[in-house]
């Protein structure tokens, strides 16, 4: 069972990487950019058939390692 964990910086946290990307896109001529935020995606393939159990496990992984909740938000997705 595959999951995608999408991790992004909270709105209040400065994202200098996103800003650098935004500036670079602007210099390439892309206009009308309001903002760019950079996050990360972690793909997890679990040997688990019970969906509820699997989501619980991935959530626990986020709590224990994948996410720093002081600065980051996360979303668990199942790829279609």
């Amino acid at each position, binding site marked *: 069972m595959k999951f995608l964990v999408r991790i992004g910086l909270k709105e209040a*946290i*400065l994202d*200098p*990487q996103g800003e*650098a990307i935004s500036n670079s896109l602007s210099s390439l001529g892309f206009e009308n950019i309001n903002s760019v935020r950079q996050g990360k995606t972690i793909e997890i393939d679990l040997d688990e058939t019970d969906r509820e159990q699997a989501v619980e496990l991935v959530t626990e992984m986020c709590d224990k*390692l994948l996410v*720093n909740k002081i600065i980051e938000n996360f979303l668990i997705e199942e790829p279609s």
Partner: protein
Amino acid sequence: MRSAVIVFPGSNCDRDLAHAISVHTERPCNMIWHKDTALPKDIDIIFIPGGFSFGDYLRCGAIAANSPIMDAIINFAKKGGYIVGICNGFQILTESGLLKGTLIRNSQLTFICKHQSLIINNSQSIMTKRFSESEEITLPIAHHDGNYYAEDETIKELEDNGQILFRYKGNPNGSKNHIAGIMSSNQRILGMMPHPERAVDESLGTTHGSKIFKSIIESF
């Protein structure tokens, strides 16, 4: 003072730190590999060195904070043990929850490697007792993710309790309240981004780091 330096894959200041400790204590310190699960008996203080543990993968210090040795370190902390984390060691202490807040990417994105002026904000800690209040010192900094961040409530708590030990003069990396080093509320867990172990010999340009090690040693 019986000390231990914890070594992770990617630590690169462990030997500098061990050298700085042994020069000042005139006794060797224990080098502990991160896969060990127990600390030597009768250790007074643990040092967590700088470097790039696990290649800074995921977040700086996040993977090291879950290494096998960390259970023993957290137990040591719970019993009131003294722990000092420098640079990546500071990041590991915040990631493990032993110190509040976190260290994020420098605000201007560059890796900063230079001698930096710092202001002693609290000269009552085991690291700073040889300094006077508001004294200006110089120590090397070398980091990409040294921008100290915590929620406003936490920052206020650190300020009110005198837990901020060092502040940057100026603000090279965007840290909240210019924070360069803090301690826990029980004053026994200390973390700082600057490198005192790189400032213990005249040939290195500054010996202000020596005063930090002497402060620590005379506390035991």
